[in-house]
Structures are given as C-alpha cells and as structure tokens.
C-alpha cells in the first residue's frame, strides 16, 4: 500500500511518493486518487482525470469556482458519488470497493445542514458515535468532551433547530469528528457564515490540524485556502490545474508585485473611457520594471518584478503622457491572481 503502482498520468501520486524516498518510513498517502473521473448521466464531465495525493497531517484545499468539480470529488472520496473511471483510496481503503469500510475512516461535513432535527444537540453526537460502535458510556463521554471543545455545552439539550448558523456548523464538525476519523472532509464550510463565525471556524480548523487531523476542504474563497491550507489544488472544469503550497503557487505567477492604477475620469462621476485606459496601459507597460500591463475592471494592472522604486516612475510616466493617475495600490500576487493566470478568468464570476 506504500507504493501505489503509477499508471500513466498519475503525476501527483508519483510525485508524492517521490518526495519520500524509499527509507522504509515513508507514510502512505491519506488520500490517493488516480485519474479519478465522473461523468454524470447528463453527459457533464464534472471531474476529469484527477490525480491527488494528500499526506497524513496535511491541510489540503480544493479551490475553484462553483461547478469546478470540487463537491463531486468530495462525493467520490466519501462514497456518495460513484466514479465513472479511476481509483480513489482514503486511508488505504478503496472507496469504491469497500464503501462501508471507507465510511469508518472518514468524517464528512457536507455543504448543507444535515443535523438530525428530531434529536437534541447532545443526542446528535451521541447517536452518531453509536453508529460507529461506541458503547453508551464511551459515546456519552466523547459527546460531552466535544461539546466542550466546540463551545456547545450550553446548548447540549436544545433541539438543533434552535442553533445559529455558526453553532450548527460547529456541531456538524463535532459530529464528523465523533468517531475519530483519520480524514476530515469539509465541503464549503464557511459559506453563509458571518465574518466573525468564519474567522472562529478558521481558528478551530487550524487547531484541529495542528493536533494532527488531516483535513480536506473545498472552497471558492481564495483567502480561505491561502489562510488555512498547507497545499491547494486549483480546479476548473473538472481538472486540477495546479497543486502546491499557496506560496509556491503564487511564485508561479510571473510577478512579485501587482500595481493597480486608476485613471481620473473626465468628471467626478464619470469613469475613464476605454480609450483613456488603453492609452494609460500603453504608457505604463513601457515603464522600466513593468513586465506587462493589462486593463481590468476599469483599472490598469501592472505586473512587475518588484514594487521598489516603481511607483514614482509610474506616476511620472503617467503625468508626462498627460493621462494622470487618480489612485494606485500595490498587492502581492494572491491565489486569485494564480487562478486568473491559469484560466484567464476571475475566480468569482
């Protein structure tokens, strides 16, 4: 199980194994997929030949727009969606051949609230543990411990309908962890949460991962993937376009700094005309240190090796050309930029 035979195209699997030379102690991957593919009866190729490797202890993210195939991948890894082709193992268990066994090693937090509305908060945890062969006392003790850890002790006896969105999400995570799964899956866990709850959930997930929990989460928020994940796979149209650490991914974008330049319009309320922007783009692209520039969202975006000393040159060039500058902001490349450079589209449409 340590070395998976690598068929053609299983680049990720091989690379993952290669990273751990045969020293005998190389950990088996927690997730290993080979050419995983799902074609729905409608003909939609939701996932197309995906090779993924997730190491034990890793916090892994699937980042991509809606419809990229993230949820379908989670569906296949959690036995709910039957792959059309390819293979998938989670914690060494073939999820297609042994779904019931696979369910013992995974914990799943789905996109929607699937808490048992007929049971109290505590009972939701208790009965979940009983499904996984925990004895009555064992289940009770573990439920209390997780209620405490997830700050739900106050609500232990209420029905789940009475929980706020953030609390319900915490309870879903606690429930997924009740049976001590080797692998925790979260599908878009922060969608619909207020910013405060989102930050709290990030902290909670980070702590779990620091305690050794392997986590795979899907998200279409690039800040979320950037903030939480050790490695991120960027997905679009059922393909994994790149998979690496956020820092490494950002390094692949051919720029160290991105400067967004806004041009003044003819009046306060009027935006600059396309001609004006095109002229400004031409001027700025010629400034030394700027690799290339493009018009995006009514601004000119300059990709440069370094922001150092660049801003005065940009301002001077624009003044000399008579176009002027009304605003200017510098940013590092983000995963958003990575996505745009890979697909030519924005992450959020």
């Amino acid at each position: 199980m340590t070395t998976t035979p690598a068929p053609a195209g299983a680049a990720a699997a091989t690379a993952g194994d290669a990273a751990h030379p045969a020293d005998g102690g190389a950990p088996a991957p927690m997730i290993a997929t080979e050419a995983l593919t799902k074609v729905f009866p409608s003909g939609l190729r939701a996932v197309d030949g995906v090779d993924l490797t997730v190491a034990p202890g890793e916090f892994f993210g699937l980042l991509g727009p809606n419809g990229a195939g993230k949820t379908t991948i989670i569906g296949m890894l959690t036995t709910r969606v039957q792959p059309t082709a390819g293979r998938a193992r989670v914690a060494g268990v073939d999820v297609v051949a042994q779904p019931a066994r696979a369910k013992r090693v995974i914990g799943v937090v789905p996109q929607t609230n699937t808490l048992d509305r007929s049971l109290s908060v505590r009972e939701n945890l208790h009965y979940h543990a009983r499904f996984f062969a925990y004895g009555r006392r064992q289940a009770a003790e573990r439920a209390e411990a997780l209620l405490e850890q997830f700050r739900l002790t106050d609500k232990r006896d209420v029905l789940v309908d009475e929980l706020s969105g953030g609390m319900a999400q915490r309870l879903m995570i606690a429930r997924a962890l009740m049976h001590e799964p080797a692998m925790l899956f979260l599908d878009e866990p922060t969608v619909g949460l207020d910013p405060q709850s989102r930050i709290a959930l990030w902290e909670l997930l980070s702590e779990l991962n620091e305690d050794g929990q392997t986590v795979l989460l899907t998200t279409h928020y690039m800040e979320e993937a950037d903030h939480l994940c050790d490695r991120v796979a960027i997905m679009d149209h059922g393909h994994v376009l790149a998979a690496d650490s956020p820092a490494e991914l950002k390094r692949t974008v051919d720029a160290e700094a991105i400067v967004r330049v806004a041009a003044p319009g003819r009046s306060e309320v009027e935006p600059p005309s396309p001609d004006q922007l095109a002229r400004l783009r031409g001027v700025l692209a010629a400034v030394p240190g700027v690799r290339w520039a493009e018009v995006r969202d009514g601004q000119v975006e300059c990709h440069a090796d370094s922001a150092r000393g660049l801003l005065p040159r940009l301002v001077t060039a624009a003044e000399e050309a008579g176009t002027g500058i009304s605003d200017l902001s510098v940013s590092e490349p983000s995963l958003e930029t990575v996505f745009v450079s890979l697909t030519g589209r924005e992450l959020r449409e």
Partner: protein
Amino acid sequence: MTAVAETPSPARAAAPARGPAEAVRWPALVAFGALLLRDARVLTRERWRFLIRTVSQPLMLVFVFTYVFPTIGQELRAFDGQASFSDILVPGVIAITMLIKGVQSVALPLVDDFGYTREIEDRIMAPLPVWAVAVEKIVAGALQGLVAVVVVFPIVALVPAEPVSLDISWGHLLAVGLLAPFVGASLGLALGTLVTPKQVPMMFSVIILPVTFLGATYFPWTQLEAIPWLQWAVLINPLVYLSEGFRMALTSLPSMPPAAIYAGLLLCGGLTAAIGLWGFRRRVLA
C-alpha cells in the same frame, strides 16, 4: 498537468483507523442496531404525536360505523345480515393502521429528507452499506406498525356498541401479524423514495385514498363476487391481503384462501421492498 512539488512533512502520521468499530466483528450490524436505537429515541420523544396520529383514524372509523350507526338505527350488516359490521371492520381497521403507519413513519419522513432537510445524509455516512440503511427504515417502520396495532386493538375491541365476536387462529395471527407490518413499511419506503414533497397531497388522493377504500377494509373481499371486475381489480392493492389476512386470523368469517393471502403479502412486500431499495439507492448515490 498536475504539478506537485513536494508533500510537506506530515505533522503526525495518523493511524488510518482508530475508532472502536475497527475492533468489532460486525460493525455494519452494530451500526444497524444503533440506527434502530436512534429511531426508538425519536419515537419516545414524539410519543404523544405518535399516539394521536395512530389513534385518530381508527377511532373515528370504529366510533362512527360501529357505535354511532347502530345506535341511531342506521346499522350496516354483512354476509346477508349474518355478520355485524364491527366484525368486518375490526380486521380492516388493523390492516389500515399498519399500512398507514408505514406511510406515516417511513414515507413522509423520507420525502422530507430527500426533498428538504437532507438529514438522511448523516445516516448514509454510518458504516454500513446503503441498502442496509434502507432495510433499517423498513424494520423501524414495521416495528412502529406493530406498536400501533397494540395501541389500536383495544379501541376497536371496546368501542363498538355490539360486542365484537373474535375467533382468533393464533398461527395465522402470528404469520400475518409479522408479514403485514413489513408490507406497510416497504410500501412506505417505495412511496418515500419516489414521491417529491410537492406530490404528497396528490399521493394521498391518487394512491392512499383508493388503497384504503378499496382494500377490503369495509367489506370482505369474498363478497365482491357481485362485482367481478372489481374483485379482480383490487388484487393489485396490497391492503386487500392485509385485511383478508387479519380477517382470516381474527374472525370466523369467510376470507380469501390462505395460500392466496400469503402469496399476496409476500409478493406485495417483496415488490415494494425491491422498488424501495432501488429508489433509495437512486436518491442517495450519484
């Protein structure tokens, strides 16, 4: 296309499987039992609702037909006046109770689960095959059907104005009493996986109402000789076999031949269970 530089050093190589399920010989069986425990817990929490939903229809039927009617001189009799209507109705009401319970306890919650709440997702993630989760639904529904009959029986025995003359054949009662709730619950599973929330009112008008009215509950199937086409047509109705089965088990009145009753129960139960299991899988797996 996939570019993976290197896998960061894992914080800790977690042992793949850690829960007690790994040490259990039949984890799927334990999970099945735990699903039943969960359903039992919900039933005790909602006992008053269960009681009211169980009792209301049988009580009304028995009260109006076998107490009010004879008392106001509007009595119905069967078998050319030889049998009192309560003797006809008792097995019919018990059969209806079991069938309706299957719909109430399996179909309606499933329709909500698949349609809105998706609560079923958590039970699907329990460590047992998907078909076993569906079978648990049938078993839990059948057990509720049995509980319902225990509740309803005293009512149908005591409410009628004229004493009910029971003639119990215990062998048949045991066999029918075990088969019937499974037919009800299997029908519930089939309906629950095929019907969408919007179609529920239609399901009652198009399926439940004809089934209950033409299920040999208010009349013995043998007396339908007078309307031959109907006597044949109602054979597709599972309730006919439940009613005739209980008629055979509880009274001395003529009923459908036992072989036909058991064949009908097994066939209806098997067919609806198969449709239910197929439908469940279709709704749960993509």
